[in-house]
């Protein structure tokens, strides 16, 4: 090594700084991993209660996982199914409907477009559960006429999710669509394509990745939603996994902790896998949608 003197002092400095850097990072690594470790450990712990004094696992077993699928009072499989149905339905439908509206806002000239956009912007910052009392009373009266879409039904809940996420979705998708070159549409039009054809044949395939990301965000959002689901779905069999697991931990934490840990791991794994495999797109979407305005 033929390092000059100045270079070696520089290196020394960096390594001092990097000691602090590494220390700081490790604090956060431990902070991040701590709850994850605790959950995994207690999900395999057959003691029932959370291991108290030792952090070394004491006996591994699948007892907690089995309990989730063999207890009629805890239809965990059913809850997962409900969550996935609701989340997928919301993701798919909202992308189709939102994509169409975003396409119109991005590519068409019509009266009221500007006002519409501004209204959209305001609407998307109002989370729909701010009006939760109103939604509750409203869907209660819908129930008297159509039990299928009123309070206590997954159909009604889906409609509210769709309405609630529409503002954000249209806004995000519009941001993406604006980045698709206009020349493509124009070329297609010159070749004689109608607006609807441009939408389905040009725009939809091109925007597929961003549509997928929006759908994914809608999916995660629905999966994480608690308040409306807990208010709407009173029947045990109708619960989403979020509401179900909450009810689980609410009552007697001491006995339920093990199965709860197992349940929360099972419920998280699909989402973590989806997220990590698509993180590049999701992260791009996060910053882009917000900064491009």
């Amino acid at each position, binding site marked *: 090594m033929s390092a000059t003197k100045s270079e070696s002092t520089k290196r020394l400095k960096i390594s001092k700084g990097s000691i602090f850097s590494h220390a700081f990072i490790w604090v956060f690594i431990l902070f991040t991993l701590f709850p994850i470790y605790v959950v995994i450990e207690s999900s395999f712990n057959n003691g029932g209660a959370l291991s108290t004094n030792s952090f070394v696992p004491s006996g591994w077993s699948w007892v907690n996982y089995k309990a989730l699928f063999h207890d009629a009072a805890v239809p965990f499989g059913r809850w997962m199914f409900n969550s996935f149905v609701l989340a997928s339905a919301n993701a798919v439908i909202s992308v189709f409907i939102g994509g169409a509206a975003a396409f119109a806002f991005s590519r068409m000239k019509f009266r009221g477009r500007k006002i519409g956009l501004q209204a959209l912007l305001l609407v998307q910052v109002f989370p729909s559960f701010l009006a939760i009392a109103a939604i509750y009373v409203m869907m209660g009266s819908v129930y008297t006429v159509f039990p299928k879409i009123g309070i206590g039904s997954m159909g009604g809940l889906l409609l509210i999710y769709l*309405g609630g996420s529409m503002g954000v979705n249209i806004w995000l998708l519009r941001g993406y669509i604006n980045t698709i070159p206009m020349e493509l549409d124009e070329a297609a039009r010159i070749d004689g394509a109608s607006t609807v054809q441009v939408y389905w044949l040009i725009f939809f395939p091109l925007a597929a990745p961003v549509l997928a990301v929006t759908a994914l965000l809608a999916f995660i959002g629905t999966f994480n939603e608690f308040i409306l689901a807990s208010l709407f779905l009173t029947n045990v069999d109708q619960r989403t996994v*979020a509401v179900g697991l909450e009810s689980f931990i609410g009552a007697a934490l001491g006995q339920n902790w093990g199965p709860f840990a197992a349940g929360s791991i099972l419920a998280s794994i699909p989402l973590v896998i989806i997220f990590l495999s698509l993180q590049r797109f999701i992260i791009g979407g996060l910053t882009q949608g917000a900064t491009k305005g």
Partner: protein
Amino acid sequence: MALLDAIMVTMFVAAYNKKSGPIEAVIAILFALLNYVYFSKRSIPLKFLTPGLVLMVLFILVPVIYTVSMSFFNYQTGNLGSKDGAVTAILQTGLTPDAKNTQYDMAIGTRNGKITVLLTDPNTKQSFIGTASGATPLAIGQFKAAANGDAIGYPGFVPYTADQFGNLSDQISALQIPMPNHIGFAEPQTESSASLFTQQYSYDKQRDTLTNVQNGAIYLDNHNGNFALATDKTKVIYPGWRAYNGFANYLHLFDDATIRGPFISVFIWTVGFSFVTVLMMFAAGLLLAVILDRKIALKRFYRSVLILPYAIPSLMSILVWKGMFQTQFGAINGLFGTHIDFLDSAWMARGVVLIVNLWLGFPYFYLISAGALQAVPAELSEAASIDGARPYQILRQIKLPLVLQILSPLLIASFAFNFNNFNLIYLLTGGGPTNVLAGKSSGATDILITYTYKTAFNGTSSNFGLASAISMMIFFIIGGLSLWSIRRANVLENN
């Protein structure tokens, strides 16, 4: 389309059958709108916009408008229904034994398929025959009398056996027999006796007043959803009804000490929490991003571990953290061998909320900070280093200001999000600890949105009007903040 039309027609008929006006109207409008949009060739943009707009109008705009209107009503437990309903309920429930405590000897049975009673006043020896629809006096000789003069038989009257009486006890105990001359109702008390009850209130439809029959006190409509004593307005009769009360719900937030106290303390915590938590998450995220922006060993490993909290569904994480802070079995107490009830002390609970939210949120801030750092043009740093700036100076004076500028809309959005971070507070602490002994209705970690929820859906005393008023306050704060942020972003863009 034809299928959709068919469904809507069916739905309309169903709504029409139930006579629910607003729902009929909504379906009719939808029907007309959708058919116009998709069968006419005129407006292509509308074909694309309509489904999204319909959903937004129905499930955001309508609830918002409804919230606005509810906030102007006295709409709470005890004031839920219509005025007619309230008057009927007052008249029915306000029954008290009459002044003389009149008791009747009674024979109960069936006649013409209806529950029928034969009543005899043992003092006056006057007998009656009655059903739920009314009673008529009987002259001596019309009925079969027992030795003491009580009516025990009448043509067509078949007395109940003890078994029948037992089986029908629910219906019988609910039986009210209006006595002649409006003196009150006879209600069966045992198998062989009934008591006379008089109405406590009588309603004068023309003057819209209730009068206490026994002491003559007069109650007037207080224009706030209740009848109140004419001489003392604080004495009101329940149930009341849902009544327009103007800005009363809003004013209560400021002039009613029992409401103002919790509202103001919740408001302060909401703002403080949102501010501090965003600051903490942003500081941690930015620092991590700055460190990991350089070449550093294990960078990829660090990165993938650090974004884990963002990948895990936040709801699960919150519940897990809740379990870990638990007193007896919680991992935190287990780790230190202590028995601290973290969620029982106001400041510890607030600390827990901040720590958990830091865990949930710092990966997001790390990701956006890293993205923003990458977005700073390399030429700027190069130019600065040519001018002799040291790496720290480049970071401090060139990169950070730019990063802050890029991220400020996201910081404001995050502030708005945490302002309404219902899941975190509701699932982690439930808003508590709440000092119930001191008569507090709000907890130390309650933010406005959880407080609204508690106000609207509190099992024993729900107050939809007040909850809607608080919701409106949140609308204004968040809406104003967003508008300001957008204006600001537009200004930046135009420059």
